[in-house]
């Protein structure tokens, strides 16, 4: 029987791998997801035949409760709230591994050897950090607490102390596997560590945090696998762990910040304080929907640059409508996607896909940047720092070196924004004061709808 279970686990692992392989192309992605789900089904069903399972009451109850909650979440969640959903799922993944590790510790039959005990300690640390850290990330994204970085005095030494205490307690439970109080203390310390790790991180750095917690939830599953020597847990946990790490790297690179700086809420210092009034004074030109519509009538190439503000304003359908009108007039419309636009990797893509924008019109930064010079009108909606030319030109600027979308190279740049307030980096954006830039002040969605209306009336 055990042989049969492990062979089934092998099949499941292969299906997970094929599933992720399917995700490398939009065309094969749905199929890939189905293969992966089939792998999960096989792994779960064969496990139910394991002889160590004596009763099924708790299992049935748990699957019913979890299945209902999961299905409700998946069907009810709005696409704009997807970062919160992913944050919660990361947390649940960590929580599940944590609960299994704690259960194995209390089960005298499971926690028998040193390897199992070390794995339990590691799983409790990573699982707890993932659980509490993800809930803080969720609270920030849902705006239950401020999305701004929250300064904790003595953050770095405090975290170092907590981490060392956690490692110390983990060693202690290996030495003294009968002491349950040590285990609960370890959980408590690691939970506090998770909270303090995420609290200082601001909203715009959330893509990094979510990707990293995604990785942790995978690593926690893998270490859980080492407790009982469960091969399918190790393989799939490592796949997820690797996935999260790669996304984390991509996000950090796109912000030109090290993982360390993101984790400890460090923004680059330096450069003399740039005075916003000096940059903007007398140079910012405000415009009206009618004026932009007139420009768009003659434009041949238009690039739309979405940012987090697009999600906030729920303007994705309005933007699609504008693009439809433009395309029906023969205008070429593309969307420029910065890797860290939004609150998680791929946020803008999902948002625009919901509004039925074909994915081949969503162009990545490196590919779209050389095209801005041939662009007649670039429309920036809800994006700020990722268009700031100081990142390219001003060596003293804190964001110098961050790759940006070169919207300022377009013939005309229209920025739809509520005010001249700075973005997450707290810096003024000289783009707004450029000769070829026009500001349309107001709500993003309203601005786009009025613009579309003016364009239609011009027919």
């Amino acid at each position, binding site marked *: 029987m055990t042989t049969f279970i492990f062979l089934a686990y092998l099949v499941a692992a292969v299906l997970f791998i094929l599933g992720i392989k399917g995700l490398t192309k*939009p065309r094969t992605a749905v199929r890939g997801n189905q293969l992966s789900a089939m792998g999960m089904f096989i792994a779960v069903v064969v496990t139910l035949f394991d002889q160590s399972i004596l009763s099924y009451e708790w299992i049935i109850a748990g699957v019913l409760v979890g299945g209902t909650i999961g299905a409700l979440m998946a069907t009810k969640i709005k696409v704009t709230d997807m970062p919160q959903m992913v944050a919660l799922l990361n947390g649940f993944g960590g929580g599940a591994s944590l609960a299994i590790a704690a259960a194995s510790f209390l*089960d005298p039959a499971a926690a028998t050897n040193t390897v199992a005990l070390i794995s339990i300690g590691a799983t409790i640390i990573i699982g707890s950090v993932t659980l509490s850290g993800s809930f803080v990330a969720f609270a920030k994204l849902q705006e239950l607490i401020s999305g701004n970085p929250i300064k904790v005095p003595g953050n770095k030494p405090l975290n170092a102390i907590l981490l060392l205490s956690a490692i110390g307690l983990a060693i202690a439970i290996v030495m003294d596997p009968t002491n349950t109080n040590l285990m609960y203390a370890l959980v408590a310390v690691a939970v506090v560590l998770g909270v303090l790790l995420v609290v200082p991180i601001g909203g715009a750095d959330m893509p990094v945090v979510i990707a990293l917690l995604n990785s942790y939830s995978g690593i926690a599953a893998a270490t*859980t696998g080492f407790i009982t020597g469960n091969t399918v847990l190790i393989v799939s946990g490592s796949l997820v762990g690797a996935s999260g790490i790669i996304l984390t790297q991509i996000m950090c690179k796109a912000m030109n910040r090290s993982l360390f700086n993101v984790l400890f809420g460090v923004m680059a210092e330096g450069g003399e304080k740039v005075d916003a009034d000096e940059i903007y004074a007398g140079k910012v030109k405000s415009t009206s929907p009618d004026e932009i519509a007139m420009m768009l009538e003659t434009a041949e190439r238009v690039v739309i640059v979405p940012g987090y503000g697009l999600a906030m304003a729920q303007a994705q359908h309005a933007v699609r409508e504008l693009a439809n009108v433009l395309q029906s007039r023969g205008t070429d419309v593309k969307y420029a996607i910065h890797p860290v636009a939004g609150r998680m990797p791929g946020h803008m893509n*999902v948002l625009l896909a919901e509004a039925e924008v074909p994915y081949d019109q969503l162009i990545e930064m490196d590919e779209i940047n050389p095209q801005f010079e041939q662009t007649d009108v670039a429309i920036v909606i809800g994006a700020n720092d990722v268009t700031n030319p100081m990142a390219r030109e001003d060596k003293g600027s804190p964001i110098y070196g961050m790759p940006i979308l070169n919207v300022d190279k377009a013939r005309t740049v229209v920025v739809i924004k509520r005010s001249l307030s700075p973005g997450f980096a707290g810096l003024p954006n000289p783009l707004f004061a450029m000769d070829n830039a026009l500001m349309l002040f107001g709500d993003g969605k309203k601005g786009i709808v009025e613009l579309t209306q003016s364009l239609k009336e011009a027919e």
Partner: protein
Amino acid sequence: MDMTLLLLLTLFVVAVFLGVELITKVPPTLHTPLMSGSNAISGISLVGALLSAGSGAGIMVNVLGFIAVVLATINVVGGYMVTNRMLAMFKRK
């Protein structure tokens, strides 16, 4: 170190490398479904949760196992369903 542990470690390291190779090929367009899909895969801890929830090692083990089953099932069901929902949006032309 016994042979089993070495084999498990080998499995772990090889799987990480495989994961890195595979995931670098996922286009940015699909990064969000990749995350929710990998959330679903990390729900594989359900397998471990089932063993704790069904074990005869005492009520505390069962309760912790139950909590683990609930959380892991949310990940599995919620993760696959929401990924499917998002991918369906990418599919239509």
